[in-house]
């Protein structure tokens, strides 16, 4: 199963890198969101997917899945959520201010065009 998931991680990374390289700001943000999914899945996979019990302590049981990657992913999910939300609002605002979401056109200081 792990090998399958590693390939899925690679695939997700490919897709997100492709999106990040595009010109539209929205596609870039979706790409970063996708990249964080790939990273979370990667952490989980690397921790090992051995079948075990849910990591909730019960007396006399020792066969749990590894809780550390889960704690790490939990932290990562929250942080990536915060960053994605901030990026999204930033993109929204810059689109409002600059009138474009094409990153190729976002160069230098916007000129005041007095019409």
């Amino acid at each position, binding site marked *: *199963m*792990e*090998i399958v998931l*590693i*390939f*899925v*991680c*690679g695939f*997700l990374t*490919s*897709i997100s*890198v*492709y*999106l990040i*390289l*595009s*010109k*539209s700001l*929205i596609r870039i943000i*979706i790409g970063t*969101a996708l990249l964080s*999914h790939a990273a979370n*899945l990667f952490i*989980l*996979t*690397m921790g*090992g*997917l*051995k079948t075990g019990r849910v*990591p909730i*302590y019960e007396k006399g049981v*020792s066969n*749990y*899945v*590894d*809780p*550390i990657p*889960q*704690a790490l*992913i*939990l*932290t990562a*999910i*929250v942080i990536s*959520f*915060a960053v994605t*939300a*901030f990026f*999204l*609002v930033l993109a929204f605002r810059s*689109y*409002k*201010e600059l*009138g474009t*979401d*094409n*990153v*190729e056109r*976002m160069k230098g200081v916007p000129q005041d*065009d007095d019409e």
Partner: protein
Amino acid sequence: MSWLHIAVLLPLISALLIPVLYRFYKRIHLGWFVLPIPFVLFIYFLSYIKPTMSGQYTEQSAAWMPQIGMNFDIYVDGLGLLFSLLITGIGSLVVLYSISYLSEKEQLGNFYCYLLIFMSAMLGVVLSDNLLVLYFFWELTSFSSFLLISFWRHKEKSLYGAMKSMMITVFGGLSLLGGFILLHQATGSWRIREIISQVSDIQSSPFFVLAMVFIILGAMTKSAQFPFYIWLPDAMEAPTPVSAYLHSATMVKAGIYLIARLTPIFAVSQGWIWTVTAFGLVTLFWGSLNATKQQDLKGILAFSTVSQLGMIMSMLGIGAVSYHFEGADSQLYVAAFSAAVFHLINHATFKGALFMITGAVDHATGTRDIKKLGGLMTIMPISFTLSIITSLSMAGVPPFNGFLSKEQFLESMITVTDSGIFNLSSIGLLLPIVAIVGSMFTFVYSFKFISEIFLGEYTPDKLPHKAHEASILMNISPTILATLVIAIGLFPSLVSAPFVEPAAKAIANVDTVHAEFHMWHGFTPAFFATLLIYIIGAVLLLTFNKWVPVLRKLPTAITLNHWYDQTGRYTPYYATQITRTYMTGFIRNNLVIIFFMMIAITFVTLIFVPFSLDFVKVSPVRLYEMISVITIIVAATMIMFARSRLFSIIMLSAVGYSMAIFFIFFNAPDLALTQFVVETISTALFLLCFYHLPNMSRYNETTSYKVGNVLISIGVGTVVTILGLIAYGNRHFESISSFYKEHVYDLAEGKNMVNVILVDFRGMDTLFESSVLGIAGMGIYTLIKLRAKHKNGYERVEKIEQAKK
């Protein structure tokens, strides 16, 4: 600290106080307050003559940074003392001269501050025994001379000259530092005397040649040797006292000092002898040839200085031959050292005076252009007399001191061809020839210097001011120097026993040096060479107007200045061009570089580092997990091809929810819960912005653009996959989670391991994760609430949208 340390630092300390004095007390010319400083130092250094003559030396040391061996070690021997006396003696005369030269309207505070810094720096260079301290003072001389050259900051040429001298001397200074570090590597000491005593270590070390090249480079740039002389003529934009002091008597001799000081280390090398001699002679020839065609008095003197420095340098090179002989044979070549030291003194006297006379002429007439000057003989009789004495000394005419040293110079150039080592008897025959030809031009420009100013017709209408004799105050310093020129010429023993012999002894490897200079040697080869110089020099003078125009018409493309300027112009240009190739300002460009490097470095590492794969512990594939996998793959692919934003947002949520389902499959209930909630909120957020967001336009992506992106994304995906496989296939030790599994209840009183890790075992992470969330929240709030209050804010987009409709 000792008196010697205080002597070296005294000008530096006064450099702090003098400008303060200037600020509050302006009635008396500031120069009068500065004058006692070099004078007192001069008297102080005179007291060292007696011990140095008897072969003793004085050493003083003060700890500065002992951890790195940088101590303020001072060492006074014949060579250091000679330079110190030149610096303080000519320094006093220059300060005296500057009192009449600079009016009180100038920024005297700045001028004397820079000059005193320079004086300290120069004393530090010649008296330091520690290479690091020497380097420190060396750069301080570059720095203060930069300030002095650009003293008239409003003139563009001053700034150009200052910049040029800074670039070239600092280039040499850094190379010098490299050489010093190599010397330290070879011997483990920073002290020059210790290094010289361990000279065999250096000579056998692999750094020998490299250190030699670096040090010669440093000395040649400072002493304006070919091809680095180009900064000196441009440094003539400085006030004339500065030119007289820095660019004739002191700073330009720092390189000569260094070569002389380190001769005991490098003299064994044939490369050293040949480089120093050959470059010195080329400089002698090239400088004197160019001096003849200058139109500016200071230009003549600048090139003349270049040429004379080359002469001294070549004598130091010849003197190094003495290290290969013993006894009387050695003495034959040591004579070149004493000639070099002797000419050093002579050059300082006559060149300092010549600069001061030029300044006086400039002051009196308002110009230094030889085309406008002429016929000042009767108007400026004192200056005329002084310049006759000093110019003829420069030309090498008896009975002045220049004659004695030039005779000795020719003598040593001719003697060295008999030495029979290092090809000196074959190719070495060129040495006296170049020396004689160079001296002919020296003869020409020295006479030209006199005749252009003082002879010919007086043309008052061409001159900016009405010419008049310089003030007495202005003539004191050159008169003292000219008196010295005659005195040393007639009685060379005045300087030979107290100065020349101890200094030559410091350079040479012999215990006793007998320096005697005579007006008449008999019919020696040097005598005939001098005669030849006079005759051909006279012929060249008579035909001056026939050959000099040819020299002046030489194309600029073959001058070194042209190449310097081109380098200065094109280096920034090409640097900008190169920077522009990768700093395009497009975000995609930077990302491509980052991703490409990631791919490249990973693959290079994979090729060179062996690895193994071992999938023993892989868990079985289950059907329902595969369904999630397929969902994720399909949804992600859909995003890539999506044309509408709503579709792509929904597909992104599909990936997110599938992730949550994965978390359920793999027994991570907290993760699944969080993922569901977060995914819902993000989707909501995307949908909130939905109305305002533009469509998923591709912005005319060309095929090559797409292909490049696809290649890079496939590459990154492959890198991630391969790294994942390798990392998973090489487990080295067990997880530490067994500790948490065992102690979650008895240590932390909780049963949910993930939660206990988050808030108890590793609570710090959670604290800052919450901070991240808080900061993002505040950032979003700020972004939405605080808007730029300019008219094109939100309205701009609305205007555009309206226009589209």
